[in-house]
């Protein structure tokens, strides 16, 4: 009897299930995002441009925030130091580890952040190629990818590359050594004809691609043997040829005031070749360029926001200040032209008259716009000095004062000071600048099989003249016994390009990265390249941990 009941139950059960089954196929409706098919159909030709813009957006922040690429390229070098100031700037010891080159395979958080953010650029640029780009769009995307690959190669000694449309669950190929350099060179060579000669410095252009190509040729010897770089004459000739073409195009010229290249109005700079754009007062897509001054100036540096007008961190050392071959004190008047402009310490309209902050390297007593002396948070006079504690843990009464500050980007005080911080500053982030072309040509001339030291000196002195600095009478590439020797091309590159994310690469290429310098003892080969983040290694077995970090 019970069995028959059970049997009767079936039709009802069946009805229930049949009615139910019709309900849904469980296809997920994404609502505010698109599937790939939808993206391809809906965005159409315009969509490729939208994807390309995403890649452009990836460029800005990694280069604009001193806590990103700049930290890896500069704090590890001789021109930048971030001392621990009692309760501030310990940050798990990462700044000391970078400066003293003591980080191990676990590295510091910055390393994986940069690995990921550069690879996001790598990905987004590659993805453009899967969406039927025009020739020009493809060339722009491949330039952006080449930029990320070059930076990855420089930092990590290897980089992964995907083909457009790859299954992202598969591990991509990894390039290292000469094949890595060649891949980038081939990419750039292939796209240069498709890039516009003039495209604005916020977009990929032929000069930017040529300049990146110059960097590849110039650094190939260092990328292939970081401990003891050698330079192939053919590569040097390429650098000279490419550089001369840019120089002779006369599209670029030195700015009358060095700091105009970094001002809130620097979008009109004649030195800019490639940059990430920003608009004053606009937060959308702002690269966070205000961090360039925020990270260095003192808590009290800008009176209306004191004691929170800066983070009082990034600084530089006496050796670098002295490399400007100081023969006097900047007179701190707008008219002062007696010294190398680049050392700064001078009045800058729109900045000094608003805040009292001056250009470049800030040393000694600091003043507000009204002439009153800036004080630290305890009420002592704020006098920037260079008396660092050797272990970089500042405990003395000068812990807020120690370190020469570097105001390379001129703070944006537009909008009654509202754009000083908060991600609305209008300065463009300079990524490639014309003087580097000139300096690379000079370096290649000196490194060529038939070295042309005189030609190099002429180029360098031309630049120095534009900066108001006295000409050098003789210039070596580098002084291996004194990295801070001012009469070298390495020092000149430092003076011109400080805090522009090339210093570590330069020190390696000039063969002195393992030498001791201020606040860093002699070091071994390990830190010539950063460790591959362990999580990235686990995800992609094609990556190989760098020597010394295994």
């Amino acid at each position, binding site marked *: 009897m019970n069995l028959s009941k059970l049997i009767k139950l079936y039709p009802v059960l069946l009805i229930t299930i049949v*009615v139910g089954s019709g309900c849904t196929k469980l296809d997920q409706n994404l609502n505010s995002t698109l599937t*790939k098919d939808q993206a391809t159909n809906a965005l159409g030709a315009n969509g490729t441009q939208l994807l390309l813009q*995403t890649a452009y957006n990836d460029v800005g922040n990694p280069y604009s925030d001193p806590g990103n690429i700049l930290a890896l390229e500069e704090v590890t070098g001789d021109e930048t130091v971030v001392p621990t100031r*009692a309760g501030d700037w310990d940050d798990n010891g990462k700044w000391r580890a970078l400066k003293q080159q003591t980080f191990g395979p676990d590295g510091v958080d910055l390393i994986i952040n940069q690995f990921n953010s550069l690879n996001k650029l790598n990905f987004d640029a590659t993805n453009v190629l899967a969406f039927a780009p025009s020739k020009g769009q493809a060339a722009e995307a491949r330039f952006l990818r080449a930029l990320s690959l070059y930076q990855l190669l420089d930092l990590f000694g290897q980089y992964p590359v995907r083909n457009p449309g790859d299954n*992202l669950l598969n591990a991509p190929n990894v390039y290292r050594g000469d094949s890595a350099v060649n891949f980038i060179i081939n990419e750039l060579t292939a796209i240069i004809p498709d890039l516009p000669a003039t495209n604005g410095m916020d977009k990929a252009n032929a000069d930017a691609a040529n300049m990146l190509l110059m960097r590849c040729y110039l650094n190939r010897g260092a990328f292939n043997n970081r401990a003891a770089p050698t330079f192939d004459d053919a590569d040097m000739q390429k650098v000279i040829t490419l550089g001369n073409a840019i120089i002779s195009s006369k599209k670029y010229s030195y700015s009358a005031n060095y700091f105009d290249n970094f001002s809130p109005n620097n979008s009109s700079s004649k030195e800019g070749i490639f940059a990430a754009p920003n608009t004053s007062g606009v937060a959308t897509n702002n690269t966070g360029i205000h961090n360039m001054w925020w990270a260095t100036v003192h808590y009290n540096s800008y009176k209306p926001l004191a004691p929170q007008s800066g983070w009082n961190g990034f600084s530089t050392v006496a050796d670098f200040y002295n490399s400007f071959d100081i023969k006097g004190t900047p007179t701190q008047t707008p008219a002062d032209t007696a010294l190398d402009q680049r050392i700064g310490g001078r009045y800058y309209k729109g900045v000094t008259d608003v805040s009292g902050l001056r250009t470049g390297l800030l040393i000694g007593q600091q003043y507000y716009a009204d002439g009153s002396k800036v004080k630290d948070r305890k009420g002592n006079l704020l006098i920037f000095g260079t008396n660092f504690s050797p272990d970089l843990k500042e*405990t003395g009464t000068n812990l807020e004062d120690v370190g020469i500050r570097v105001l390379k980007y001129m703070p944006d005080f537009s909008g009654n000071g*509202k754009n000083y911080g908060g991600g609305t500053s209008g300065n463009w982030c300079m990524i490639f600048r014309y003087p580097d072309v000139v300096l690379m040509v000079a370096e290649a001339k000196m490194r060529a099989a038939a070295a042309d030291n005189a030609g190099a000196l002429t180029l360098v002195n031309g630049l120095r003249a534009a900066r108001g600095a006295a000409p050098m009478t003789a210039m070596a590439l580098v002084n291996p016994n004194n990295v801070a020797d001012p009469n070298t091309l390495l020092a000149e590159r430092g003076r011109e390009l400080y805090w522009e994310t090339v210093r570590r690469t330069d020190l390696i290429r000039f063969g002195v990265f393992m030498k001791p310098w201020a606040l860093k003892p002699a070091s071994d080969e390990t830190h010539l390249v950063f460790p591959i983040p362990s999580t990235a290694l686990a995800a992609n077995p094609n990556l190989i941990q760098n020597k010394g970090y295994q």
Partner: protein
Amino acid sequence: MRKKLLLSGLFMLFCLLTMAQQRTVTGTVISKDGAPLADASVIVVGQKTGVRTGADGTFSINVPSDAKQLQISYVGSETQKVDISSASNVTVTLQASSQSLTDVVIIGYGSVRKKDLTGAVTSIKAKDFNQGSIASPDQLLQGKVSGLEITNNSGQPGAATTIKIRGNNSIRAGNNPLYVIDGVPLDGRTAKPGLNFGSGSGLDFGTTPESNPLLYINPNDIAQVDVLKDASSTAIYGSRGANGIIVITTKRGTSGGTKIEFGTKFASNAGYMHKYKVLSTDQFRTALHTYSLDTLTNSLDHGGDVDALKAITQSSLSQEYSLALSGGNETGKFRVSFLGSQNFGFIKKTSLDKYLGNFAGEYNFLDKRLTINFDVIAGHTTENMGLVSNTAGAGGNLISYALNWNPTAAFTTSNSLYSKAVSSVPNPLAVINGYNDVANVNVFLGNISAALKLTKGLEYKFLYAINHGAGKRNTSIDGWIDGINGVSGIGDAAISDAYLTSETFTNTLTYNTTLTQNLSMDALAGYEYWKTNYGNSSLFASQFNTNLDQQSRIPILYTSLFQNAKTQTPLVTFVDPTTEIQSYFGRVNFNLSSKYYLTGTIRADGSSKFGANNKYGYFPSVGAKWNISNENFLKSVIIINNLGLRASWGITGNQEFPAGASQEQFNSGSYSSFGQSNVANPDLKWEKTTQVNIGLDYSLLKNRIYGSFDYYHKTTTDILFQSTAIQPAPASIFFINLPAHLINSGVEFSIGATIVSNSNLSWDASFNIAHNKNLLKDFAQANIATAQVSGQGVSGTLAQIIGNNEPVNVFYLKQFGGFDQKGQQIIADQPTFQGDPNPHLLYGFATTLRYNKLSLSVNASGASGFYIYNNTFNSVTNISNLQNGKNVDASIIGSPENINASVAVSSRYLEKGDYVKLRNATLTWAFGDLGKYVKNLNVFVGGSNLFVITKFTGFDPEVNVDKNQNGYPSRNIEYIPYPTPRIVTFGFNLSL
């Protein structure tokens, strides 16, 4: 429901009975307090004859002339037998059941008598709920259920809690159990818009705490809560069962006259439960002298004497009024309830206002063959929140301002304005005054079901439910507040919206039958469709023209003149991918002679979240029980009333990962950009937890001692995990099913006792304790670091690890080795494993002592064997802040630490979290009936969070500030949280 089916079955049998000699017995069934009990079941012992009581509690039953006893049972009461051998009219008074084995336990899609239950379920009835200040229903259970850990994430009334049943089952956020309310599964999210004043907004406050998803359930409406712990009871919920299920059953109307219940409660905050020790004014002055800071040009001594931690708090009188009307007859019952409450938070200007209405009804048609049940909840809440964020950076939040405030600095100036920031610490009272953050949320929960008895024992039920919430949050920070970067002189505001809509369709068939004389079976088959949608939008603005200086303030919030802002970020909208789950499930229970029970369940869940290759998952379970006490050899053992051995095995799932994670997605970025945002993983599927449970239920000495013991072992595999993306990739992570094993094993023990029980004096006590061990095994990935430590000087540091052969979230910190000669901290170069944040032991204790009309109930609970990271001490109150004129931790007195020592994250700030907390003590005077109309008048006074015994130096050892890193959850980090107050409550309730 099944019980009623059984009863109607009995009616039919009754009609068939043809006995020779019969007589009639009449009677009345009343409750302890004299109220007639309608619908109580009256049967003749030894026979299947039975009737039910009418609305007035009376019954009339024909019994064989030789019948000796009647058995009377009623839901929620002790079943009682009454002698009728020489009586024809009886009055039966039923006692409310304690942990009685006749209790009905609500399980998935049905209910079962506790003694027939094969699974591990803890059922808590309304009378055993926690008392005192209850903002949301989960607080009713704190400390009551073994193996259930409920941690308040914030002291803000209405804030979310972290709930873990039997340990940490997952290495993702979203570990809370599934809530099921009257058969309707909830989404678990709320429509209160979240707010992140992080990098995107240009501010430094970070994320704000979440809100509790159960806020809309009136705690007074809850009849019972069942916590489903093992796989036999949770597998019926399939891919959502792995974290356990909390089943909430609301009260229904009862037959009989219309009853009005009224209750009111007043509460007042009465100081810190555990105050954070910073320097007092005197100590501060002494410290300035000790560290030669009293000779500075700008004196750090401002001459005053204030206590900022006290000044930010309030003791305003919170009030709650609740009213319920209920009534009905045999064919229809209803219950209507209202709750209006205004609950003031401990921090000034914070509060939670609730207005909840609930209308529930049950009506029978077609000779009771058709039952329509409905329940409609309409709720409105207003939350006033303080500036207490989870991840504030160097800028801090209100709590850090109060901790750091220089105790010699007055809050107001001579012209009674708020004083400016002192030593860059914003004036906490100014911040309270100028910060307005109000979330208004409206929620509608409605469900209707129809149950139709098709034939004897066979019932079909249809349920439709909709849960819709819409929230709006206005946040405004006045620009006149001094000392907050990005706020001062500018002003900031945000308007955010969110909505959440879930729908449930359920069809079930149940069938009860006796297969043989001793073997009965009930079976369930069902189909369910569940769908949920969530979306939000937010708009930030800054640079306002008004309220930029204190003197010229206008009483208009920035959110009321938003267009005035110079900078407005574009409206950012986000619509979560729709989640749909389609399920087929079934359960069968066999009962052989009430000695041997077997339960089997299966559920097939298809979810739109899963990858294209894995749309459906299957979740089976079996459970068995041996009621040893029903065996002949134990029947003669008088002291044992019940002894049941349970065992179960099953597989449950977890699908709490972001919808859309399995698909390739392209999203719109800002400024004419579109890009890929997710890596597709078509193989993505649910996470699977296999659980074995062995349990013993016991009841001794006339049921005066009762409880249970359980052992469980859970293995979670196919762990849903945010794996490191294989670069180059559109995002740094993507979801995979990790081939590792997350193991939770433990034991739970509970004991309850009725120590004394007579008309003058009664004393009940219960105790529960649970041990859990958590371990991640076969984790082949590189260790994942999480738990971001926040604040000045420690940014970028993570305190915990998810790694192989360690408990999830184990602390991984550099060892602190004291101070060197310079007073600098000695800290190891490399971090090492430092301890487990997951409690190893959880325990709870409750007792009720009654003498005549006066009763005292006390509830305490605790945890031990775990660590807490004191991020507050580390980065807010560390010694180096003293020289900047900030108040610091009182422990600096006599410390060898150099005042200029660098700040670092290390094991120094890891503290033992062990605690015992007196959650509540309530004294009640039961006046009983007063005059002709007032019934059951109770007046009570009580205190919550009265004290805590702990060595932890922070505000509350029960702390879980959300410090997740890229979605990897953190555990037990204290960072300037909303503090926990002591609360005194008093009130009364009565019925008419």
